[in-house]
C-alpha cells in the first residue's frame, strides 16, 4: 500500500520523514472484515523513542495476534511536522492504515515517563478528540493507558477513560474481547466502561469520587455509589499467570530508520530481588520471575530469523541476578556466533564472573564500563539499600584497568533522603580513588589518559517505594548540591548532571493527585509539548500553570508526608504493602540493610500473588 496520509511536500519538508510512513517489515495490516475491534498502541513521544520500547512492540504484536482485532501504531509527530499539520488542518494519524486516529475504537497509551504527559494531551487534541474524558461522547474512541507511570493514576485521571494496572499480556486480550462484545451489541460508552471496569486490574477514574479537605489535602478516593458493583475499592495490579509461557512475539517490527534501541531485546526476568529503596521499578515489577534459557534461546532464534537483527540484548533490571546466566549466555552464543550476531549483557554487576562473560561475548568494546554506586558513602548506600561497597567497586575497576579499559562511568544520585554534604564529597572522593587506582596501575608506563565520568542525577521520590513519604529538595538546593560535588571534583574527572527543573516537575507529577491534571491541562493550553526534551521544556510556563490552579510544585515535593495520611495512590495495590514500605523507611533511617529476597524474604507482601521467587519457583 502506497497511500500516505500526509502529502509528500509536507513530508519532505520535515526532519526524518521515515518516522511517519509505516510499512516496516513485520508491521501488521488487516483488511476490513478481518477485524471487529480497531485500536492503536500510542506512544507520547517521537517514533524513534517509542519504537525502542520492548513493551510497546510486544503488546502491538500481542493485540494483532488476537482474533478479530487490528492494532495500529500512533506516535507524536515531532514539532516541525505538528506545526505544519495544524496549519493545514491535518489530524493525528495511524501508521499502518494512514488514517485519522480519531476513527478508531480505542487508543491505548503506553505511559513511560511523567514528562510525556503533555504530549498525551496534545496528541488527543491533534486527533480532534476531546482531551478530557468527561467531554468525550459516544462517537469518540475510548482512551486508556498502561505502563509504569500509570501506576499513580491521578495526575492523568481526567484524561483517560480507564487505566490498566500491572502486566498487560493477559489483561489486554480480555479488554479488547470485552469491548468487542459490547461493540457488537451496540452498548453505550458508559455500559462498555462498566463491563471493562469488571476486569481485574482496570481502574475507571470517572467511577470514583476524589475528596480533598479545605486545605486541599487529599482525603480519600472511593467508588461512587452508582458504580459500587463494578468499581473495586482497591485495584489490584495484574500479574501474568505464567511468566515462562506468557506471550512473546516471534516476529517483531524492524524500523526502516534508525531508532534509539534497534535490536532484539530478550526479557530474561521480571522484577528485582535487590530492593534498592529509591527504585520504583524494583517494587512495582515484583514478584521476581525468570524465563528458562530454553525458552529464551528458542525465541531468540525465531526473532533472528524474522528480523535479521545484528544484535541481541538481554533485558532486565539486573542481568547478573539471572540465576542461570552462564548457561543462557553459552546457549545464546551457540546461535549468535555463527550468524555474526553480537550479544549484549547490560547492567552487569562487575564481579569476576561478569568479566569472564564479557570476555566470552566480546561484544563489549573496551570503551565503556559503568558502575552505579548511587551514593558517595557507605552510610548512604546502606540507607538506600544499594548493595555495593567500595572494596568491590575498586576491585572491579582494577580488573577492568588491568584488562585494558580506560573509560569508567560512575552513576550517582543527589538529593537522597538523609543526605549530607559529606555524602556529596564522598562522590568526588570515590571518583578520585578510581582515578588514583588507574594511575597506580599504569605508573611508570605510557598509558592512555583515563576517561572517568561522574554522572549525577537528581533523586525523585516515587510512589510505591519506601521513600514515597520523603521530601524532595527544591531547585536552588539541587544546584547547591551539584556545586558541592563540582567544587570537590578533580578536573581530570568529567562531571555531568541533570536539569534540576525537570526533576522538580517530575517529582510533582509522580506524587501528584487529581489536581495535577488541571495543571497539565493548563500548561498544555499554554503551549507545552515535548517536555521530556530539554529544548522544549519551559519551566516558567509550568510554574504559571501551577499558580493558576492555586498550587505550587513544592506542595507536592517539599512536604514530608505523614505515615498516617492517605496517599493519592492508595487505591492501587501493587502487591507490596504499605506496612512493608514503612518498615523499610524505618530501616533506612537507621541505616539497616535489607537482604536480597533471594537470600531472605523481607515480607514485602508480594507473596500474595503466589508466584515466582516468593513461592520458590523462580522460573515461573
Amino acid at each position, binding site marked *: *500500500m502506497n497511500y500516505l496520509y500526509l502529502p509528500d511536500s509536507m513530508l519532505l519538508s520535515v526532519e526524518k520523514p521515515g518516522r511517519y510512513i509505516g510499512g516496516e517489515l513485520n508491521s501488521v495490516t488487516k483488511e476490513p472484515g478481518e477485524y471487529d475491534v480497531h485500536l492503536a498502541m500510542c506512544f507520547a513521544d517521537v517514533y524513534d523513542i517509542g519504537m525502542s520500547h520492548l513493551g510497546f512492540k510486544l503488546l502491538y504484536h500481542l493485540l494483532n495476534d488476537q482474533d478479530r482485532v487490528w492494532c495500529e501504531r500512533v506516535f507524536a509527530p515531532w514539532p516541525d511536522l505538528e506545526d505544519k499539520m495544524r496549519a493545514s488542518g491535518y489530524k493525528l494519524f495511524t501508521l499502518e492504515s494512514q488514517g485519522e486516529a480519531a476513527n478508531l475504537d480505542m487508543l491505548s497509551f503506553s505511559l513511560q515517563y511523567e514528562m510525556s504527559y503533555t504530549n498525551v494531551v496534545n496528541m488527543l487534541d491533534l486527533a480532534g478528540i476531546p482531551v478530557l474524558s468527561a467531554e468525550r461522547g459516544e462517537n469518540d474512541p475510548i482512551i486508556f493507558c498502561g505502563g509504569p507511570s500509570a501506576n499513580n493514576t491521578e495526575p492523568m485521571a481526567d484524561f483517560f477513560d480507564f487505566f490498566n494496572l500491572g502486566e498487560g499480556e493477559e489483561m489486554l486480550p480480555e479488554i479488547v474481547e470485552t469491548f468487542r462484545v459490547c461493540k457488537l451489541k451496540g452498548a453505550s460508552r458508559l455500559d462498555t466502561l462498566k463491563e471493562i471496569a469488571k476486569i481485574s486490574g482496570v481502574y475507571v477514574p470517572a467511577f470514583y469520587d476524589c475528596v480533598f479537605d479545605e486545605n486541599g489535602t487529599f482525603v480519600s478516593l472511593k467508588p461512587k455509589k452508582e458504580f459500587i458493583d463494578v468499581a473495586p475499592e482497591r485495584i489490584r495490579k495484574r500479574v501474568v499467570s505464567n511468566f515462562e509461557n506468557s506471550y512473546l512475539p516471534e516476529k517483531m517490527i524492524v524500523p526502516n530508520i*534508525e531508532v534509539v534501541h534497534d535490536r532484539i531485546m530478550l526479557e530474561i526476568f521480571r522484577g528485582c530481588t535487590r530492593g534498592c529503596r529509591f527504585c520504583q521499578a524494583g517494587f512495582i515489577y515484583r514478584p521476581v520471575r525468570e524465563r528458562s534459557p530454553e525458552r529464551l534461546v528458542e525465541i531468540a532464534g525465531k526473532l533472528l530469523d524474522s528480523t*535479521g537483527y545484528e544484535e541481541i540484548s538481554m533485558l532486565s533490571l539486573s542481568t547478573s541476578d539471572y540465576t542461570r546466566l552462564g548457561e543462557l549466555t553459552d546457549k545464546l552464543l551457540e546461535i549468535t556466533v555463527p550468524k555474526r550476531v553480537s550479544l549484549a549483557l547490560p547492567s552487569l554487576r562487575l564481579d569476576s564472573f561478569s568479566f569472564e562473560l564479557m570476555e566470552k561475548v566480546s561484544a563489549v568494546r573496551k570503551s565503556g564500563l559503568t558502575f552505579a554506586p548511587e551514593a558517595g558513602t557507605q552510610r548512604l548506600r546502606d540507607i538506600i539499600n544499594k548493595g555495593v561497597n567500595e572494596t568491590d567497586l575498586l576491585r572491579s575497576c582494577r580488573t577492568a584497568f588491568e584488562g585494558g579499559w580506560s573509560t569508567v562511568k560512575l552513576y550517582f544520585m543527589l538529593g537522597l533522603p538523609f543526605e549530607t554534604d559529606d555524602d556529596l564529597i564522598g562522590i568526588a572522593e570515590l571518583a578520585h580513588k578510581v582515578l588514583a587506582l588507574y594511575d597506580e596501575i599504569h605508573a611508570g608506563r605510557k598509558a592512555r589518559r583515563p576517561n572517568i565520568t561522574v554522572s549525577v542525577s537528581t533523586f525523585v521520590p516515587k510512589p510505591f517505594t519506601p521513600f514515597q513519604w520523603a521530601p524532595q529538595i527544591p531547585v536552588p538546593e539541587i544546584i547547591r548540591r551539584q556545586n558541592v560535588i563540582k567544587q570537590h571534583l578533580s578536573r581530570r574527572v568529567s562531571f555531568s548532571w541533570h536539569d534540576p527543573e525537570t526533576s522538580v516537575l517530575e517529582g510533582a507529577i509522580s506524587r501528584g493527585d487529581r489536581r495535577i491534571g488541571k495543571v497539565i491541562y493548563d500548561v498544555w493550553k499554554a503551549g507545552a509539548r515535548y517536555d521530556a526534551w530539554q529544548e522544549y521544556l519551559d519551566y516558567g510556563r509550568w510554574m504559571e500553570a501551577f499558580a493558576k490552579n492555586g498550587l505550587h510544585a513544592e506542595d507536592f515535593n517539599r512536604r514530608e508526608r505523614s505515615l498516617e495520611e492517605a496517599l493519592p495512590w492508595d487505591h492501587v495495590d501493587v502487591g507490596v504493602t504499605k506496612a512493608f514500605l514503612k518498615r523499610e523507611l524505618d530501616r533506612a533511617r537507621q541505616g539497616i540493610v535489607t537482604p536480597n529476597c533471594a537470600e531472605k524474604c523481607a515480607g514485602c507482601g508480594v507473596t500474595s500473588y503466589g508466584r515466582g521467587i516468593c513461592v520458590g519457583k523462580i522460573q515461573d
Partner: protein
Amino acid sequence: MVKYRIRFCKTGRAKYVSHLDLLKVFTRCARRTGLDLEYSQGFNPHAEMVFSAPLPLGMTSEAEYVDIDLTGERDTEELLEVLIKSLPSGIVPVKIRKLEPGEGSVMKPVRYAAYRISVSCPEGEVREIFLDAVGRCLESGEAVMTAKKSKSGVKVVDIRPMILSFGSDPAVCEGGQLSFGAVLACGNEVNLRPEVAFRGIFDKISGVDISKSADEQDESVPGPFSGFEFVSAHKLVFLDSEKNELW
C-alpha cells in the same frame, strides 16, 4: 568470494528510507534469508556492500544498484526470489547477475540518468507555453546560471551543459500535475539533481534575477509561470557516455 549485482526499485513509502538506512535494510535482509555475506576483516567487521549513488530522499527509482559479496555461488533466479520475499515493501529487486572478476563499480560508466519529473501547475494553455519556453531556452544554447551545491559549498554555475534533455514526452498525470522526461548529468564527476535543473530553467524562463536572494525578489508582479512547482522525480535508468542504458 562471489560478487553479485542487484538492480532494484525504490518505490512507494520506501522513498523515505534514506541511503544510510538502506545498508541496514539490506544487511538485515541478508541475515533473514541466510545469505552468507563476505565480511570485512578487522576490529568491527561489516558486510561488503556497494550501492549506486545516493538517491535523494523522496525520489523513487527503477535503477538502484547494490553489489554484494557472497562466500559462495548461488543460483541467481533463486536468489532474486528470496530477496523479493524478504525485503520490506517498496524495495523491489528486479534483476541480479554475477559479476565477472575485475568488473568495475556500477557508477564507473555512468554519465547520465533519465528521469520522469512531476510538477504541479495551473490547468490550461499555460502548460504548453511553459514547455515551449523550456524548449526554446535549451535550444538557444544560452547559459542557465543557477545556485548549485557542490563539495566546496553553494556556487552559481551554468548547468546547461549538464542538461541533455528536459521537457520531453509531456503528459498530464494524476492530480492535474504535469510530468515530462529529462536526461541529466549523473555520475562520479558531474551530477545535476532534477530539482536543481527545474529551478534553474524555471528561473531563466521566468526572468528571475538569480543574483538576488529569494527574499529580495519582486513578488508584486507574478511571473509568467507562477504556480509551477517541482513535486517529485522518478529515476528511470542510468546512461553511459554513448547514451546506452545500463544493465
